[in-house]
């Protein structure tokens, strides 16, 4: 069964080719979409390759597209649907990485790391008093208890924090007990938590779920972390809350990516940013690769691939 993989240039092609030759000898690997035509039945891409009408029309036998990442914004879903082509992503490879990223944001704030670093590195000063604080004893609120939420809770356990969570579907009591979780309604969580991390999908219900009212309920000085989707937070309301209530924010995701760097948020002191890479680590890339190979093998075996988007 013929298959085509398109990899961006920065991935070492020779390594991948050598491995793939041992696993699926019928897989061709190229590094751009400049092909005239391909009779492959399977297409494997990263988020860096546009899968649009232009490419799909040159692949008349295409039946299955596997995106080797969580996101698939690069794929024209409507066109695939109209052609009856299956699409799968890999939603399981980056949950550990995102959970660690959230903890990194949390500790950067609590330990006042960026300020201390700047004091010493930029100003060559030896600060005697710091605002550094412990994570132990704080209340950590997780909004959305899916696979990432669970990974985060597991990692928080040894810190001896109170872990509260909100989700539209409450976990079974044994699960709550296992991870030391206390369930709360959304508003109660906002009122109680010192740190809040968002792990929700973007839907009509979650869009701007954090607005004026929600920020008004949060504790002064609370830390908010968003590694989910930019649109879940109303940015204007956030900036207001940062000014009025000293809310701190760690942001990995933006409504538009890359974002508009003139936006006021980039001028705020208590904001730390990363460029949508919470789930992108060297290790998670390896897991994406393994899961991608497994899913393509599943298709070649005649089984239904996992993680179907279409």
């Amino acid at each position: 069964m013929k298959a085509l993989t398109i990899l961006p240039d920065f991935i070492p092609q020779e390594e991948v080719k050598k491995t793939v030759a041992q696993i699926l000898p019928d897989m061709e690997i190229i590094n751009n979409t400049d092909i005239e035509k391909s009779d492959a039945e399977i297409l494997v891409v990263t988020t860096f390759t546009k899968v649009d009408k232009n490419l799909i029309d040159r692949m008349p036998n295409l039946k299955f597209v596997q995106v080797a990442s969580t996101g698939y914004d690069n794929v024209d879903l409507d066109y695939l649907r109209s052609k009856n082509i299956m699409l799968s992503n890999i939603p399981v490879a980056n949950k550990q990485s995102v959970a660690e990223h959230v903890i990194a944001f949390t500790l950067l704030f609590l330990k006042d790391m960026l300020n201390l670093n700047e004091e010493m590195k930029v100003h060559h000063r030896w600060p005697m008093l710091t605002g550094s604080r412990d994570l132990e004893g704080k209340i950590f609120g997780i909004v959305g208890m899916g696979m990432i939420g669970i990974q985060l809770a597991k990692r928080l356990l040894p810190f001896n924090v109170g872990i509260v969570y909100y989700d539209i579907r409450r976990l079974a009591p044994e699960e709550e007990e296992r991870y030391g979780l206390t369930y709360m309604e959304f508003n109660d969580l906002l009122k109680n938590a010192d740190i809040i991390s968002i792990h929700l999908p973007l839907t009509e219900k979650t869009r701007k779920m954090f607005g004026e009212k929600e920020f008004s309920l949060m504790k002064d000085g609370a830390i908010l972390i968003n590694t989910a989707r930019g649109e879940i937070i109303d940015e204007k309301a956030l900036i207001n809350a940062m000014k009025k209530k000293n809310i701190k924010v760690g942001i990995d995701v933006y409504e538009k990516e890359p974002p508009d760097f003139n936006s006021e948020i980039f001028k705020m002191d208590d904001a730390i940013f990363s460029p949508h890479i919470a789930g992108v680590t060297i290790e998670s890339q390896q897991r994406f690769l393994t899961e991608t190979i497994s899913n393509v093998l599943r298709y070649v075996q005649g089984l239904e691939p996992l993680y179907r988007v279409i």
Partner: protein
Amino acid sequence: MRGSQIFANAIEDLDLYPVFGNPGTTELPALRNIKSYILTLHDSISVGMADGLAQYSGKVKMVNLHTLPGLANSMAFIYTAKMNHTPLIITAGQQDMRHMVLEPILYYNLENVISDAVKFKYELRNVDDIEIAMKRAKLIAQTPPTGPVFLSLPMNIMDMDGTYSKMDDFNFSYELINIEAVKEISEKIMRAKNPAIVFGYEIDIFNAFKEAEEFAEKLGCPVFGEPLSSRAVFNTENTIFAGDLMPGSTLINLSLLNNDLIVFIGGDITLYPYLPSPILPGKDLIFIGLNISPKMGNFYQMNPKLFLKESMKYIEKKCNYSRPKDLTFATKIANERSSLGFNYVMYQTKKFFKDYTIVDESISASYTLRNILGYKSKGYFTAKSGQLGWGLPASAGIAMQNKKVLLVIGDGSFMYTMQTLWTLKKYNIPLKIVVLRNNAYNILRSFAKSYYPEMENSPFLKFELEIERFAQSFGIQSQVAGNDLKELSWLAEGEDPKVLVIDVDKNIPKLFL
């Protein structure tokens, strides 16, 4: 001399005692003069016990089953013995020949039933057949590839008068070697860019641990275990051991990505589940062994121990492999304490059972068990066929000769041949048993999760079993372990058979691609 006496004499002279079995009326004539008989409360258990004991002792063992029902009940075990290459003589009673034509109750064509599970089958026609048939049965069971053979014993033959001349016992000699081939293979290894060695279960059968280590250390190249080996393949404490190959083409290819020549010594490639990658494309494959039946590469039938010894003359240092130490191991153990994860359970078990022979029917924990408890000479046994229910009887058979045997078994697997506990009690067999209770057929759930995710929580893959009470009802001491697993020390104490139930992590482990 009466047929039954000839039969008993043949068993004694060929050193086949004890006979394992579950009798019926059709067997009584054959058993009249039997000296040593181990009763099992399900027919199949007698085959499993004989299999375990035969493998452990390296001797042919004997089973007597109750004609069609007993034989049919035991078929899976006889197939397992075939896959294990265990030399067994399976016998079954048969109806009186004088009215077979009328198809009386309990008559059936047993040779058809046993089909290709044995390599030799014969129904006695005459009292003087007994001596010859028994001798041939033992010889053929021991001829490589070794395995079970079958004799059907019609009732009336055992009551007939015949003659018997005392037989001298004999054992097959496995000193088979092809000197020229050894030189050729060794030179090929020296010419290869990056060879890898895969050892298999014949290393244990032919007691070649010392030779395997000397060979591996001289060559210096990484040593792997054959996928799903049924016995120990190498001393895994030695850091030249890189780990077991997994039973899937893709995974095997990934483990051996950088090797151009792979030499399988006393082992073969066993696969499950199907994966679409071709197996080791473009690689040079050599197989050496007596029982194995490779499906690819070049096969040289010879005794792996003799090969390893002879090859030492030609090989030189070629690589400098040493397995890196897993520095995350201690953290894993600490993390898994509260959930009783497999790493933690096996790590604690090793503290008390390091010098025990391990029988493994731990199913979804098997990979972790092999990794942590490791392999040593006559130190590891599991069924090669994938059949459940083998572990209990096989470990009981081994424990008849070895006071230090630990069976590690899943709660699902435990239920297939639970009556073995009665035999343990009856004959004072000092077997120690750890039952890993996860209230499910978790390996099936793991398979479902990888391939048919809508089935991973199917109610028909889950159950709750009060194993400790089942054991107690057979008069066997049993406890349920707490999180610090202190009860392992109780389990190791004394020579009574005991059952320890451990409520292990119920999460579905990832075992398939």
